[in-house]
């Protein structure tokens, strides 16, 4: 029995976000939205943004997914609200690098708030896509082209 090793991935804070996801709802007013699917498992996320003067005023998501994808979307919406579009894109890149195991400064990781805790997902390569799905939805809804 070695499920204890799972505690590295399924930290309390991740389980909390998954059980009680923040911003899991529809927005009344939406300026950008994006639906992305994870083709390996069929999980789907629909991200909605309200952007005013180049600033993310509100964000919310709906859809179905595993603990990691739900927690990641909850934590992402928490940290991107109030940020400029450029800041949000920058965070998405930091997050993507982080889960792929690339190093970042403590200051960079701090920008991610709770979401930085998902760095543990790099030990579970099969689950990286679960964590990054919502961030890809963000990048695409802000008009970024797929580049990696």
């Amino acid at each position, binding site marked *: 029995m*070695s*499920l204890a090793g*799972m505690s590295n*991935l*399924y930290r309390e804070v991740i389980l909390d976000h998954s059980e009680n996801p923040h911003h899991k709802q529809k927005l009344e007013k939406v300026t950008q939205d994006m639906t992305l699917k994870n083709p390996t*498992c069929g*999980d*789907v996320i629909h991200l909605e943004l309200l952007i005013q003067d180049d600033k993310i005023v509100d964000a919310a998501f709906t859809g179905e997914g595993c603990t*990691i994808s739900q927690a990641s979307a909850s934590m992402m919406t928490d940290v991107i609200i109030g940020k400029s579009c450029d800041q949000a894109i920058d965070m998405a890149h930091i997050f993507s690098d982080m889960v792929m195991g690339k190093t970042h400064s403590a200051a960079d990781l701090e920008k991610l708030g709770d979401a930085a805790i998902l760095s543990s997902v790099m030990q579970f390569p099969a689950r990286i896509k*679960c964590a990054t799905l919502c961030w890809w939805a963000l990048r695409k809804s802000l008009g970024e082209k797929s580049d990696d």
Partner: protein
Amino acid sequence: MDKIKQQIKDDFPILNQQIHDEPLVYLDSAATSQKPRAVIDGITQYYQTINANTHRSVYTLGQQATDQYEAARVKVAKFINAKLAEEIVFTKGTTDSLNLVAQSFGQSNIQAGDEIVITYMEHHSNLIPWQQLAIQKQAVLKYIKLTEDGQLDMADAEVKITDKTKIVAVAHASNVLGVTNDVKKLGQLAHEHNAVIVVDGAQSVPHFPVDVQDLDADFYAFSGHKMLGPMGIGVLYGKEQLLRAMPPYQYGGEMINFVEEYQSSWADIPLKFEAGTQNVVGAIVLGQAIDYLQSIGMDEIASYEHELVAYALPKLLAIDGLTIYGPKDPNLHNGVISFNIAGLHPHDVATAFDMDGVSVRAGHHCAQPLMKYLGVVATVRASFYLYNTKEDIDKLVQAIIDTKEFFKV
């Protein structure tokens, strides 16, 4: 089979290892089977002793490679009781075989308004080729429904298969629901309406005896890698007269008779469908995989797997919050068991099982229309083969208990 089951496990070197400090329990043979030592050694042996290109080399090695490649074809033909070795076309796998039928037979026989009948339990490989063909030809794609417990609804099959039907394409055994379909009866229905039946045998040929003449299948497709052979080799069986009438699927080396500047004529079957250098080692080693399976006996393998299912199903059904998709009666269920645990996503479950050394599949199993039909996003799937044991099932049950405990569900 009981006496030799430990010996069987020992024949598969990969199974003798630890995953996350736990002994590996491999329960994903529906995705791909593990390989016995004879098959692994056969690959080395081929490259160390007889590697040469087939059907075009006059020297000794070339002849040996050709002889062994053709001997493998004969072996495959006998294994599924084809009338002729020429009815066996080597392909990359089931997907390739089914695409061959759709592109060659389908392109030349389907017209606007014709109907193609498939089922809700098809793997994408026996679904998308027909869906796309139907779009191209403005044909109608129809789905046979399932019964409440996940079996094919034969009454609906009788309604869906009509005089407009040209092709009926169906899995012999489901890769999700654990059911075996009555393809003989479906073939009779298809033939009564002058349609052909195309059978996806990816989940059947590895697990129980298949006789294509008895089934009266027009086309029958399967993969080497799910039956102890290597990846990248598969088989399409087709009735002689059908294969003869079909145009080539791909053009190039070795599939020709004569080539002139502005026209060409084709080789006889089956080489007409084997353009370019083939996976010769794959075919030869698939023959060795068949030898291994026959040394145990397909009837024996089928009854042993049934014993595993009869042992597993009640234990799984007794677990609180566990839902099984497909029949609950072990007599109606083969060695593929799909399930979900209430409150848990299959991906989380599979990661947790992996920490216990248990390898299972989580996802949509390349059957998204079926998932939608069942009203689920994904499932966990455990699948058994001849090298699994009751101890493996005990470990699966323990992993479920551990996982429920970890996530407090």
